[in-house]
């Protein structure tokens, strides 16, 4: 990791992971706020208006951190990955610029109106602002995922004599077959995060005996949305995504599974440790034939192991890839169980009194962030050793003119800066949660600035 390349990789991984903690929460909350605003509009009940306002306040803090940590991402293609920027800019520059033109302007215009415009707009117009903001945040994700999908599965381009990728078809880039399922899977992931955070805040209110009515609304909406999204993440989106990997990135699949030998009726290892010296799985707990079924829908299909590929095409972090994939799936299944139990208790009318289960909802809140991060690590580590799958290697993409020492310096700077942002975020959102959704005399002077 002390090499310049390792530092550039870690630099990008660290800044994108931190950024996405906030981006996923704002995208999930944007949809939940729209749902609350819709309920408020349909029932004309002040309760839902206040609930929506409360989450808009949390959203605003999250959005700020998401925006300021998002700006470095666009710069880093050029600063730390200039060889890649040069090779791919003609293609992915399009989607990144489209994000700026179509999504960022939409978001930045309407976030201010959502926050400060309610008194001056009709209820319907304010609802429409919430809709536009939700569209803006999800559109942003679409363009970023189109960029990533092209790196995972490059389409619609040709290589110029100098090795630079030139765009051949904008539609192919925007309708990449990799993109659709990935987008849905990813966006459902943001809803799981938003839903569980909302449910946890509701559970906190119910457990601590304050803001009870809001606590019930938040728990109900939270577990409903997180549950629906968790189920859809498993099937069909996760399933189709896995089949895409099996079809287009067989070496990545072998790495995710830590599978070294090619077998028919491949088992799925629930746990285990891939041993990279002896090239075998230690302490595996296997479900026979399940991997073949997941990848190809056939319990006896052949799944290629890593040995079927030249060593220089193996993902370079197999154990980390293997664990990330398992953490994502394990947590995804756990979320489904938590939500199904919550639904059952809700149906029997016992959820809000069940202190033990409310505690479970409260402590679940951090885990969707971990699951989404692990999912992205699985996707990105699985893509290795390629930066553009099958075209450009990661080792060829970094800025050779930026030394490891410079990358280390700015990595340290970002670490410090982001530690401050994290503390501020937790402190300010904690205060908002403590104040609760009711209008309060001591909640500052309620002014924009």
């Amino acid at each position: 990791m002390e090499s310049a390349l390792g530092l550039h990789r870690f630099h990008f991984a660290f800044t994108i992971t931190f950024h996405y903690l906030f981006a996923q929460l704002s995208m999930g909350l944007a949809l939940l706020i729209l749902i609350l605003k819709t309920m408020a509009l349909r029932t004309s009940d002040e309760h839902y208006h206040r609930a929506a306002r409360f989450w808009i306040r949390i959203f605003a803090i999250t959005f700020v951190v998401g925006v300021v940590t998002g700006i470095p991402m666009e710069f880093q293609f050029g600063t730390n990955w200039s060889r890649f920027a040069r090779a791919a800019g003609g293609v992915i520059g399009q989607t990144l610029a489209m994000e700026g033109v179509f999504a960022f302007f939409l978001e930045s215009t309407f976030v201010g109106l959502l926050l400060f415009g309610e008194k001056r707009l009709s209820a319907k117009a304010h609802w429409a602002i919430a809709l536009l903001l939700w569209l803006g945040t999800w559109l942003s994700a679409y363009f970023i995922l189109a960029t990533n999908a092209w790196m995972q599965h490059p389409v619609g381009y040709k290589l110029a004599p100098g090795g630079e990728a030139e765009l051949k078809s904008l539609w192919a880039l925007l309708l990449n077959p990799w993109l659709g399922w990935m987008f849905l899977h990813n966006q459902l992931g943001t809803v799981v995060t938003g839903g569980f955070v909302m449910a946890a805040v509701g559970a906190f209110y119910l457990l601590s005996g304050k803001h009870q009515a809001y606590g019930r609304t938040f728990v109900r909406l939270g577990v409903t949305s997180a549950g629906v999204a968790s189920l859809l993440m498993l099937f069909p989106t996760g399933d189709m995504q896995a089949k895409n990997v099996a079809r287009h990135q067989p070496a990545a699949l072998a790495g995710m599974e830590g599978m070294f030998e090619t077998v028919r009726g491949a088992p799925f290892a629930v746990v285990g440790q891939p041993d990279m010296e002896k090239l075998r799985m230690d302490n595996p707990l296997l479900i026979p034939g399940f991997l073949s079924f997941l990848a190809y829908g056939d319990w006896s299909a052949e799944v290629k192991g890593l040995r079927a590929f030249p060593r220089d095409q193996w993902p370079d972090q197999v154990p980390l890839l293997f664990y990330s994939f398992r953490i994502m799936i394990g947590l995804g299944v756990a979320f489904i169980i938590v939500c199904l139990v919550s639904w059952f208790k809700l149906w029997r009318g016992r959820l809000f009194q069940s202190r033990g289960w409310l505690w479970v909802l409260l402590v679940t809140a951090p885990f969707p962030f971990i699951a989404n991060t692990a999912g992205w690590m699985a996707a990105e580590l699985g893509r290795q050793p390629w930066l553009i799958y099958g075209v450009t290697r990661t080792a060829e993409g970094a800025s050779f003119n930026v030394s490891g020492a410079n990358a280390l310096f700015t990595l340290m700077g970002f670490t410090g800066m982001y530690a401050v942002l994290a503390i501020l975020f937790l402190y300010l959102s904690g205060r908002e949660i403590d104040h609760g959704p009711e209008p309060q005399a001591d909640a500052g002077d309620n002014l924009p600035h």
Partner: protein
Amino acid sequence: METLWFCLIALMLTVYVILDGFDLGAGIVHFCVARDDAERRRVLASIGPVWDGNEVWLLAAGGTLYFAFPLLYASGFSGLYLPLMIVLWLLILRGAAIEFRSHIAGPLWRPFWDFVFTAASALLAVFFGAALGNVVRGAPLEADGQFFLPLWTDFRPGPQPGILDWYTILVGLTAFLALAQHGALWVALKNEDPIRGRARRVAWLAWCGVAGMTLIVTGATFRVQPHVPERLSQQPWGLIFPALALAGLLWGMLLQRAGRDALAFLASCLYLAGMLASAAFGLYPYVLPSAGERQFGLTVYNTAAGPYGMRVALYWWIPGMLLVALYTWFVYRRFAGKVRLEEEGY
């Protein structure tokens, strides 16, 4: 097609400087025009609903630069690694300062964020100016179009320059003064006395500095980058751009003396646009000249993307920017007139 995208990106960057320029400038003059918390809140409320949208112009321009001239983006961003990272940190701190200040009404909390806001705004203005200075002066490009600039060497714009040398520092100071004036005029326009009176005095002081620095920087530019006077003598119609800047400067003086805040602000816009257009015209067809071997300089031709991408992008860029113009018009219209603090948010 290359020239068209060069003009469009120059236009986007000009809009960025004019729009984000006034909120950076408001940050620079924040402590000079506002004495207590209520006044400072007014200054912040003058940029509150728009600063984020203004900053998006930088991102949109960066993205457009990326797909139209990928080699320039790759070379420039990695070669200017350190100052860009410092700019990013300043943008992060400034965004946090503007948005987090209002959350807590504490006697330590708010002055702290006011200070961060001012310091980050001032440094950003200097760094953006210095960045422009670096582009005009040129970079020590290698044959493969790459370079890496240290923060400073011997402070001389020779063949081995640093980010900061006497020339780029001069441009940085000019930018600082020009944006201070721009921001002070905006604050004057959006507020009543006593903030307006103080802002007008600051704007006038800044104007005197800008006028002097403009002369010095223009002279220095002709010396540091001989391509600029060559261009102007080959195509004298380009003199219209410096003439516009000069007109903006002089008109600004008259209007400031007459107390016409809105028109004086427009004159300042004209000045900024004229100066940036002059720089773009003077450099063309270079986008990053070479400080050493002249043939290594990056031009619109040797950095451009493929022809299909350039052409197809017009189909989404034009409607996209029309939408942007619509949002911008909408949000500025809602925000027209003097700042009123009784508008409640959450």
